[in-house]
């Protein structure tokens, strides 16, 4: 089993490495370079040359990639085109803030989704299930910016319970982000919960219909014991991966949310850097997000491996 774990870790590392190449190549293949992008119309003559020298763009691609990659592993993400500031510094607080949003959504969303998913599966087609499933469809299909705007309209504009926009600066202590952070976290939670709960529901329904659930019943196992001891452990196994996928998706959805609420996180920074054509920053953020994505998936896979008896024991017999 240890071998499998190491293999998985190795694969994760390779994926991150591949991603870094894709990012780097992607940026390279765009017409022009970081300087022409940033300076736009003013990209000519001495200005351009200086910029290129400052950013080290006059060296061959392979060298630049190697340096960038090596630096990234050590925590140094290069300098921004705008103002030559070290990106690692710029990114620090932003990353923290985004993690605040993400963790808030996860802490609220995952337990809620598991609970609602199981409930709607056990009382399938009854009122509870219909209501929950319908709400889930709504939450899943409506774009985040729509639900965000709607929630702002209701809770901020009409009811005035929470502020609709975030005014706290990026480097403020985390505590100061309350209560502004509540609405953004709510929107994220809604969408996350909806996705996860649908999968949990179908997984539990499938497990309930399985032969081993029927056997437990025929063995005289009382209903609730069957649900908790036989059905749920099997049903919840595959949901680990879905939860990971959803967390990963969260990283993308966060961008829109941060823009809507003006929240000073990594997503907003990414949009700004793209608008500013500040490619080094964009590149760096892309790498961070991708690494987190791979990391989360890796954790999910390892968790599954540990939890699934079939994977834990490598003795596979013929039926």
């Amino acid at each position, binding site marked *: 089993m240890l071998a499998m774990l190491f293999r998985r870790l190795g*694969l994760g590392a*390779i*994926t*991150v490495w*591949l*991603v870094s190449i*894709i*990012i780097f190549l*992607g*940026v390279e293949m*765009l*017409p022009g370079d970081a300087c022409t*992008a940033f300076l736009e119309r003013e990209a000519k003559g001495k200005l351009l040359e200086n910029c290129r020298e400052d950013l080290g763009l006059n060296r061959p691609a392979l060298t630049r990639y190697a340096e960038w990659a090596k630096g990234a592993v050590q925590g140094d993400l290069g300098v921004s085109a705008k103002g030559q500031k070290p990106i690692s510094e710029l990114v620090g607080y932003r990353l923290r803030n985004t993690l605040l949003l993400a963790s808030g959504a996860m802490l609220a969303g995952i337990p809620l989704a598991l609970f609602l998913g199981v409930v709607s599966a056990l009382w399938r087609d009854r009122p509870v299930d219909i209501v929950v499933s319908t709400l889930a*469809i*709504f939450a*899943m*299909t*409506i*774009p*985040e*910016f*729509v639900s965000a*705007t*709607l929630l*702002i*309209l209701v809770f901020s*504009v009409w009811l005035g319970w929470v502020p609709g926009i975030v005014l706290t600066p990026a480097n403020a202590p985390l505590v100061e982000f309350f209560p502004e952070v509540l609405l953004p976290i709510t929107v994220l939670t809604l969408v996350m919960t909806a*996705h996860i709960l*649908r*999968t949990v529901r*179908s997984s539990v329904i499938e497990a309930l219909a399985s032969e081993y659930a029927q056997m437990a019943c025929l063995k005289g196992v009382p209903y609730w014991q069957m649900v908790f001891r036989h059905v749920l452990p099997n049903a919840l196994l595959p949901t680990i991966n*879905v939860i990971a*996928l*959803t967390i*990963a*998706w969260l*990283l*993308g959805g966060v*961008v*829109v949310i941060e*823009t*809507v609420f003006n929240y000073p996180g990594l997503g907003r920074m*990414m*949009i700004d850097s*793209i*608008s500013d*054509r500040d490619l080094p920053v*964009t590149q760096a*953020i*892309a790498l961070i*997000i*991708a690494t987190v*994505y*791979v990391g989360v*998936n890796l954790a999910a896979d390892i968790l599954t491996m540990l939890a699934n008896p079939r994977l834990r024991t490598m003795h596979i017999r013929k039926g």
Partner: protein
Amino acid sequence: MTPSTTFQRPRRIARLGTVFVDIIVRPSGAIGLTLVIAHLVLALIAPFVVPYDFTEMNATLVMAPPSSLHLLGTDHLGRDTLARTLMGGREAILVTGIATPLAVMWGGLVGIFFGLAGGKLDEVLMRIVDAFLSLPWILKMLVLIVTFGTGIEVLIPTLAFFYGIPVIRIARAATHDVVARDFVQAARARGHSKITIIRQELLPNVRDALLVEGAMRWSWMLLAFSSLSFLGFGVSPPTPDWGLMIADARGFMSFSPLGVLAPMVGLSSLIIGINLTADALAKALGIDRAQKAPV
């Protein structure tokens, strides 16, 4: 014996008809299909039905409440909200309507090809696809859009390319499933060429999964398109678009909420309609629709 009759199926009716009926019969399918068709019709006839030209600005009637003149009021530039809402889906439907089939086709073909190829090539490709998918969609698209501009000629290929990539995965998985089955092995044993096997054995069986996936792709793409417009990277003004309208109007939500609510209803009803239809389609075709996050 479970209640499933194997011998009493009716004679073979045109499959399209059966599937269609199966969809309508379910309430979700009926509602969904109605919504989708309504939107498509609206997109076609909107220019002829709108009370006002959507660009016509009336400086005196800025952010007016609903009245007999303007059923839904006006926006911050004095334009009629109803007109803009009715027209708001056209660009989105056009762009995504073209990009979706493109995405499914290119993703499907590549997925099938690599699903058949197998071996090391297949493994390497999937690693690259996985790595690619670990980047947030918005990042990937924005980079391209920002570099090449926001015209339709950029949006359509960009959306088609990026949204085709997850289709590769699905097509590959479906291909793996089908190829393992005996009738494909039987065809191989007979000596049919690979092309023939793809055409006759594979495609008809993979088609259903791709169809459902295509419907879902369309809804994800609409979501992406409207998000892009919202952020200012999609449609350019003065073209009316729901995403853009919401972005514009949200600063004035407290004064005229309709400016935000109307396009919300438009956008949501279309996306929900597509989702419901896709759900009913999946059930009618007997496909277990995997719950996946968009891209």
